[in-house]
């Protein structure tokens, strides 16, 4: 246990050196020479020297700075996941340069004002740390703009917590996007607002995939404009889904299962679910001879039940078979 002391001695002697230099200036030549770094000191003194490693000047994680920065410590206590924040570009640097008392507190109080819950602040800041660098007045103008468009306070709170990047967009950008959705989909103002409240990601995401999906729906899948409107109003997620998957799902539903367009308009949830699930359940029902999707025939099975029920309920109620049979059938595919 004597091993730590010599190493710490040499490290610790770096601290007293400035004092010794000052002493040298006031001392004469005849006085006692200053103590050198290799001098032996008593054990008690050695134990009392505390030498900590220096802070790294450059690092790729925020872990090294967390202990020494109050801002980071308070953010961790709030619930911000620093390991994910440091993956964003420049967000880590931003957090280090900000001071908790002056800047961050004002923005946090503002967010609480808007309606974000305390326990959601952590996840919000994890996804969008750049909001801490925004100007408070700009944020307030944007919220005032949303209020002027007659979005209620609770609705604004919901939208902001689900789409953290929303408040980063300027007023003109938000305006453009709302106008875009109104024109493309042909909805009234109230319907567009409803849509945006349910899926605020539409405002923050890219617009090209949305346009592409709309084109695909119209041209390749062959839906009429009013059918597209109905589908999008019921499941706005279809606009952000990948177009390949959409095409594959529609191909299977329409050509192999033989479901006409008007049925798909009534139950657009099928587009949201995984193709594999639909395939498995449909093949099981054909094997049992119960695949009947026409409401006019007896023992009809509605599409949303096909898709949204969990496995056990599906097996017992719709297919009237046990789960073991379903699993054995799946193993024969």
């Amino acid at each position, binding site marked *: 246990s004597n091993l730590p002391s010599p190493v710490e001695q040499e490290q610790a002697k770096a601290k007293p050196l400035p004092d010794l230099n000052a002493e040298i200036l006031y001392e004469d030549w005849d006085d006692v020479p200053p103590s050198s770094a290799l001098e032996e000191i008593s054990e008690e003194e050695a*134990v009392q020297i505390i030498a900590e490693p220096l802070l790294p000047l450059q690092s790729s994680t925020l*872990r090294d700075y967390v202990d020494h920065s109050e801002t980071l410590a308070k953010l961790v206590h709030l619930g911000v996941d620093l390991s994910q924040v440091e993956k964003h570009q420049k967000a880590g640097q931003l957090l280090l340069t900000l001071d908790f008392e002056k800047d961050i507190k004002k923005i946090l109080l503002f967010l609480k004002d808007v309606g974000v819950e305390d326990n959601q602040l952590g996840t919000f800041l994890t996804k969008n740390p750049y909001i801490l660098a925004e100007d408070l007045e700009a944020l307030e103008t944007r919220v005032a703009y949303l209020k002027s468009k007659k979005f209620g306070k609770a609705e604004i709170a919901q939208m902001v917590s689900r789409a953290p990047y929303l408040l980063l967009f300027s007023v003109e950008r938000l305006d453009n996007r709302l106008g875009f959705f109104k024109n493309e989909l042909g909805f009234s103002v109230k319907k567009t607002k409803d849509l945006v409240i349910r899926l605020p990601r539409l405002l923050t995401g890219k617009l090209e995939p949305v346009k592409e999906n709309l084109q695909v729906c119209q041209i390749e899948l062959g839906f009429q404009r009013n059918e597209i409107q109905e589908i999008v109003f019921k499941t706005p997620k279809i606009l952000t889904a990948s177009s390949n998957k959409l095409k594959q799902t529609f191909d299977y539903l329409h050509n192999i299962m033989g479901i006409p367009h008007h049925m798909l308009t009534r139950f657009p949830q099928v587009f949201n679910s995984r193709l594999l699930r639909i395939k498995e359940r449909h093949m099981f029902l054909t094997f049992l001879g119960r695949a009947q999707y026409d409401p006019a025939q007896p023992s009809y099975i509605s599409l949303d039940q096909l898709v949204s029920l969990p496995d056990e309920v599906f097996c017992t109620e719709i297919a009237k078979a046990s789960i073991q049979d379903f699993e054995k059938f*799946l193993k024969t595919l």
Partner: protein
Amino acid sequence: VRFLPAPGRDCATELVPTMVPVLAEHPLVRGPRFRRLKIGAGHRLDVKASGVFVLGISHGNKLLTDLYNCHLSRAYTVGGLFGKATDDFSDTGKLVEKTTFDHITREKLERVLAVIQGTNHKALLMHSNIDMKTQEAYELAVRGLIRPMGKSPPIITAVRCLQFAPPEFQLEIHCLHETQQYLRKIVHEIGLELKSSAVCTQVRRTRDGVFTLDDALLRSQWNLQNIRSAIWSCQLKVQAEIERTL
């Protein structure tokens, strides 16, 4: 880690390294502890085929090489269709020719299968490099343990016709060192032997060495508990098989 004075001592001459809870070790700062998983795969399975697929996780990869050296056989269920021939021997390829198949009966099919099994049996004996005239070879043959223990071309050990409903038919094939494309080629050749043509509609592996369909986990069962119980139940079988062969 911090060096603190040893507790309970007056003259504090010792420093003891102790772990002090520090914010840098908080999970939110550190990130998830397990980021990657090393998974190795057993014998290859095609994109168009389905069935039992053996996976090894991190330390299990070493057992995978041992299993490969055991040279165990695999069982497939192959479904085929008479009357068509395509360029890649499966039903999604480009159509090359169409033929009639009314003349095919079950006996003819079984005769062809017996011929295939015979030729493959001879190839099996040749590649297993055992001197046929010894007593040892006779005993191994009686127990059915003659296997090529090195590299060899694909060999079929047993073929059986499960279903025959023209134009569709289903075979069960036990084989060694094969690929799914070879099985599809076999289906095509069966068609040619019967003076018609055939394509392969389905290739499904029902057994891979010691792993059967009952041990296999479905897509909906891919969670931690099921994987752990599957590993636990298969461990004994794998150990027994490796000890028997090596």
